[in-house]
């Protein structure tokens, strides 16, 4: 047994003839921030979706703190401690920010076959939700309808919802995508504040963010991981430079 929180072995996923995951082996250690980078269409989102249970791999296995979770679907994995944000912001647009987070709290507060008491006024849901909104810096925006939040705030909200489930593993798919400089900086600072107490898999194109946050980096190209290592190692890795970073400049 290794000390890995998550171990993926031989993950394969094809869309028709396209091999979006072509035998991925991947570990996350408890407490680390492990970034996954790679060019557009490399299969990063597909990979994350298999970890979160939204996509079923064609082959391979996923173990989470020693247990085989390959057959579990997204809700079950969430209850085990997975949480994700989506590349395209996925929140409850008609609900207020507070309601969004309260729903995430509710999802992890036992079953919801409770038919009578108004959920919106339940302190057991509101208080933790409010605390998390404060933590991500959205406290002042709690009563705003999510659709009316700025783009960056919506992405923050999504992270807040993920955190509200008290995850053991946070899967973030391009959390700063589409954000302005200030917004990006705020998000990076916030994610940095989680370091150490939260295990994170971070998919990101923003290399500044990646290199400032990641403990380790894996490079995914055409569905394969071509290198894994510390930021320094990745920076100097010849293959990575050729396959990815080189093209970028």
């Amino acid at each position, binding site marked *: 047994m290794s000390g890995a929180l998550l171990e993926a072995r031989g993950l394969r996923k094809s869309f028709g003839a396209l091999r979006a995951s072509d035998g991925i082996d991947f570990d996350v250690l408890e407490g680390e921030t492990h970034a996954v980078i790679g060019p557009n269409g490399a299969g990063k989102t597909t990979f994350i979706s298999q970890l979160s249970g*939204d996509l079923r791999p064609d082959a391979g296995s996923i173990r989470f703190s020693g247990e085989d979770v390959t057959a579990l*679907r997204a809700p079950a994995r969430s209850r085990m401690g997975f949480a994700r944000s989506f590349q395209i912001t996925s929140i409850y647009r008609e609900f207020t920010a507070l309601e969004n987070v309260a729903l995430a709290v509710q999802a992890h507060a036992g079953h*919801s*076959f*409770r038919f009578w008491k108004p959920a919106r006024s339940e302190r057991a849901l509101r208080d933790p939700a409010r605390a998390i909104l404060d933590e991500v810096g959205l406290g002042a925006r709690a009563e705003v309808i999510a659709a009316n939040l700025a783009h960056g705030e919506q992405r923050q909200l999504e992270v807040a*919802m993920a955190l509200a*489930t008290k995850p053991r593993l946070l899967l973030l798919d391009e959390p700063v995508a589409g954000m302005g400089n200030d917004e990006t900086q705020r998000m990076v600072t916030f994610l940095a504040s989680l370091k150490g107490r939260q295990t994170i898999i971070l998919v990101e194109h923003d290399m500044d963010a990646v290199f400032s946050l990641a403990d380790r980096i894996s490079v995914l190209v055409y569905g394969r991981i071509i290198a894994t290592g510390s930021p320094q190692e990745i920076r100097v890795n010849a293959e990575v430079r050729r396959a990815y970073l080189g093209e970028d400049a």
Partner: protein
Amino acid sequence: MPGRARILLWSAVIALLILLPPVAEALKQTFYIDLLRRVMIFAIAAASLNLILGYGGMISFGHAAYLGIGAYAVGILAFHGVDSGWMQWGTAIAASAVVAAVIGAVSIRTSGIYFIMITLAFTQMLYYLGMSLEVYGRDDGMRIKTHSQFWGLIDLADPVSFYYLVLALMLASLYLVHRLANSRFGMVLRAAKSNEARSRAIGFSPYLYRLAAFVIAGALCGLAGALLANHTAYISPDFMHWTRSGEIMFMVILGGIATTAGPLFGAFTLLVLETLLAGWTEHWQVYLGPLLILSVIFFRRGLAGILPGARDA
């Protein structure tokens, strides 16, 4: 302020509904008692649909099935000499719940247009079943000779007593759906309607909640069916006709989707409109059809959406 507007609106509505029978009788216009009783029965049906359609986003085009099952439960038991309303209405509710559980279990696995078509198809199946029940009058249906009996507590043969019973049950139903929709249970339904992928990602499995809502809605609509059977003293497969499902759906939309009072407003609008048009021309549906189309295109928010105080928090 919205709180006060709401209290005002509800007080006005309830007062009007309470005052209607004595006024109508004084003016010798008892027809209106009948019309409003019908409106309120359909408001119950629409409220039940609102739970799954409005809050749950499940576009069931087969809700008339439960109206029919509720009505047939009353009719069939009465036919075999069981007059007890407790038995009849209990059976109506239970049978509707069971059928809803079966139909729901199959159809909730699907979504989108499949769900629409499947719920419609299942209701059509029940319609044909009614059409082929030789003993119970096939397509002609049958008369119900005696109203449901409640140990002499209330006499449904008296139009006014029956009216007030329906009023009480309707208010209770609207309140029930209101509570359900705002409970934890209701929040799961609404969340899954708003964004299913997000719901699954935070750990909700919507299926069982949707199924439970579907069953509750079926049971409540079964009660409406039992009331309708007593209202018309008559049952026929037409109760389950697919146009009936469409009408109930329109009531939900016209009144204001996912609002507490919407089903009542919607039932009132549609049934009164139908009555007016039908009194004016035999071919009223030629006018109703385009009116409905226009309302879909231009009147998306429904009545409750424009009335101050009718939209809930």
